């Protein structure tokens, strides 16, 4: 059924910390590895060792530059995967019922046996979270590692999504947003976790923690009152002063006497 559940018992999802992500792409690789070897159709590559390689990924890391008005530019690494939206537009457009949102934990999944590969769900997703596999011709997306998080054959510390488990800078956190005291709810509250494209009305479950303000060396900063102070020296003196005047006097020097 591709109508969305009115509410889900749990709201499993990720918190991604843009402050600590170092852009190493380890989450991309562990995701590709786990999801190629386990649940569903493998994530294929086309021309992987050739001149024009491409492939299916459920998680991709972009990098953005922020140029604040009065501070140096800042680089932000930006991992992006399915946000398991509460009002997921990808689910309702599906004509076969292959796309669905689970009532028990809110994970958005694709039943690959029912997928006709029309691609409409990928059109409906604003985040580019769904990719049609060029080999299997079915829609692939993040499963929140549904085959890890409930898997009792794995040691307990491994029962979290592969991207979270592998992240070396702890920039990814997995938990239940329906529980106000969970790790992810607390992080979202304390660090001002935000939605991507809130104007799309998708109500994403995953939250992004904005980068903290950067500290910077202020020892060379000029005091804001400096322009009001009496100037202490108007003319250069000594050797450099003589050199300045001598160079100004040479042919080809600018007409205003070197004063810019």
């Amino acid at each position: 059924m591709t109508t969305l559940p009115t509410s889900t018992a749990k709201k499993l999802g990720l918190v991604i910390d843009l402050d600590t992500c170092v852009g190493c792409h380890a989450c991309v690789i562990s995701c590709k590895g786990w999801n190629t070897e386990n649940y569903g159709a493998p994530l294929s590559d086309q021309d992987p060792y050739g001149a024009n390689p491409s492939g299916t990924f459920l998680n991709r890391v972009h990098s953005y530059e922020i140029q604040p008005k009065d501070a140096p530019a800042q680089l932000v690494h930006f991992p992006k995967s399915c946000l398991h939206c509460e009002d997921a537009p990808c689910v309702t457009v599906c004509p076969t019922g292959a796309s669905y949102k689970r009532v028990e934990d809110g994970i958005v999944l694709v039943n690959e046996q029912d997928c006709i590969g029309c691609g409409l769900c990928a059109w409906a997703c604003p985040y580019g979270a769904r990719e049609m596999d060029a080999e299997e011709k079915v829609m692939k997306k993040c499963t929140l590692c549904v085959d890890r998080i409930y898997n009792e054959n794995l040691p307990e510390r491994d029962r979290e999504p592969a991207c979270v488990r592998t992240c070396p800078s702890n920039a990814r956190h997995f938990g239940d947003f329906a529980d106000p005291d969970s790790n992810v709810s607390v992080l979202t509250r304390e660090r001002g976790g935000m939605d991507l494209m809130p104007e799309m009305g998708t109500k994403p479950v995953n939250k992004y923690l904005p980068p903290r303000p950067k500290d910077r060396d202020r020892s060379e900063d000029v005091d804001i009152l400096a322009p009001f102070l009496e100037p202490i020296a108007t003319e250069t003196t000594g050797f450099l002063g003589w050199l300045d005047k001598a160079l100004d006097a040479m042919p080809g020097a600018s007409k205003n006497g070197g004063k810019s």
Partner: protein
Amino acid sequence: MHPAPSVILFSTLSGLGFGLLAFLGFGMPSATGFVSFVFFTIAYLLAVGGLIASTFHLGHPERALKAFKQWRSSWLSREGICAVAALLVMGIYAIGAIFMGQIWTPIGIIGAILSIGTVFTTSMIYTQIKTVPRWHNVTTPIMFLTICIAGGALLSGEVAIAIPLLAIAGIAQIAHWVLGDKALKNSGTTLATATGLGARGDVRAFEPPHTGTNYLLKEFVHVIGRKHAAKLRILAIVLMVGLPLVLLMMSHSHVLAAFAVLSHLVGVFAARWLFFAEAEHVVGLYYGKR
């Protein structure tokens, strides 16, 4: 958006086919026997041919029957059901007209409404897509419906009605272009809202996730051919509306009418290519491509 030939063919041919079926259903012309056989053959070839073309873009066309299940939420599912219903009902009407010399008016009217309904459901597949602001507005269904009805009038030989309808279709198409050009800007979605980083300063895409291309870029960030968009628009509107109008007003000969239909078909095809090629999906923002 990637202008897939199969989808463009489908929307062009089926739109015209269902438009003709609608006119036949309303009894314009209320022909019987061989004349109605020719009309119904043309209509079914266009409508069914378009539907078959549309399955070519599916990854798994052998599972297409599953697509009739989710009519409660999915416009694509509703389109499938509406199309099959229209073809079946109009099939019954056609049997009456061709083989029994009977015009079963109530069945024709139901079939005509279902035929126009099919084109409406097709247009809603695009209109519902919020991620493509150019499509997500009322001009999309109006443009699809007016072109379908004008094409039907043209093909059924209802010249007196076809002339004003073609003019209206042309206005609807131009309105879709004019409003569409501002749609992405007016939607308020930018790289700043996409990343949530806008409050901190100007955001610029610094490095893409991969050096190569991917499904998202191929499907949603089509930019080839945009430089000719203005010329193609003029060409599309002249062929779709302008030339057929001139031909229809010149005389009522069958040869000129055939040229008018052909010109209209090529014009709609060009306009539908632009419909996809010019559509900007917001995912392109993440790649700094808008």
